[in-house]
């Protein structure tokens, strides 16, 4: 999990909506530049998030006291 507020899915959606907005709406120069910067930033962040993510497979184990522990899942 990331410490970011938004999920990758939300970021991807926003990225797409920025692309659409830049293509279709008549923005002022300031707004267009703002959107452009946001879009480029988002695309970098999304790619980084994808690249930085690590494969992780865990298993939840409940101990005698009912506490849930998370352990690495040994694949075979």
């Amino acid at each position, binding site marked *: 999990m990331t410490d970011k507020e938004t999920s990758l899915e939300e970021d991807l959606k926003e990225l797409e909506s920025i692309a659409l907005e830049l293509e279709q709406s008549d923005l002022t120069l300031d707004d267009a530049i703002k959107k452009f910067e946001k879009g480029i930033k988002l695309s970098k962040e999304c*790619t980084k998030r994808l690249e930085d993510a*690590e*494969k992780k497979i865990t*298993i939840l184990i409940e101990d005698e006291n009912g506490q849930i522990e998370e352990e690495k899942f040994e694949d075979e």
Partner: protein
Amino acid sequence: MEEKIYSVSSLNKYIKMLFEQDTFLNFITIKGEITNFKAHYTGHLYFTLKDEFSAIKCVMFKSQAAFLNFTPEDGMKVVIRGQVSVFERDGTYQIYCKSMKQEGLGDLYLAYEKLKEKLCKEGLFDEEIKKKIPFLPSRVGVITSKTGAVIRDIINVSTRRYNKVNLVIYPAAVQGVNVPETVIKGIETFNKLNNVDVIIIARGGGSFEDLFGFNDEGIARAIFKSNIPIVSAVGHETDFTICDFVADLRAPTPSAAAELVYPEYSEIIKKILMSKGRIINSMNNYILRKKEFVTRLKSMKLEKVPLDIINKYHMTIDNIMTRSQSKLRLLLEHNKSKCQSAIAKIDALSPLKTLSRGYSVVQSKENNKVIKSIKDLKKDDKLNLILQDGTVDVVVE
């Protein structure tokens, strides 16, 4: 007395009415062997149910046939629930099947059917309450056995599509009496920890009895209550459990569940690059467009406008000047001629003209007053006598 004569259709209508008034025929459970089975292309099933001595026609409409978890065939022993009614057109009576199970499944199957009907009525299967499965989950919870092929299939398939999977397994019993308890606990645990954004409940294929643990009211209600969307992958394509009906999405197999939950990694990268490309393109286009706009403005002589305005005022001033000058000249001309005619008039009235005709003017020398009457004169008064070419002094005698 004349005998009343009826038409065939009104007779059949009457018989049908009798059938439908009968509560026994309206909901009946019959067992028998299938024969003459035909699956029509419309999805409706037509067959005959028979025993050693007798047979009855049956029809099962597509909407009900969709819920069958086996394919009926000739020779199969089944138990049918439905309504006996008349098909008016042919004047035949037949069973309209609501459900069908293979004979021998016994009570388990009936319990399943009953529970399904109950939960369906309560609205637990309603499409509009189903939660959306996220397009790309940050983390996926898997409720299944920690050993066996299912978990390995899920790991393999999801990793193949998306090499950085984030799975957390909740080990559950997938067969036997512990199924409901462990599966419910898994759903509740994930909801309490709130650490995944989709849950897969998975189990491999098996007989109806093997999967029966998943036909549990408690599991159904736990799935219904879950805030996290749930994908059910219990059994194989043809196996339907209550768990499948309540879940937000049914996957035909555990591997399919992994595919439904994880998108292809390369597809997402492609998507990001495409959006980025679109953003850069449209920004370039935007700047080009604005540049063109500026060029167009320039060519519209915007820069020359102040000079144009000044020139325009110059012209106005020139115009006014010309007009006032000519007006002035006209005024001058007018006054000049007026002046000349006045001078001519004055000239005509001048006393000098009268003098030239031989008249003269007499003035008192004392006060220069013009003498107009002899009454103003007395002896020895000194006078000026003005003639046309000069003045002489005279004295009154």
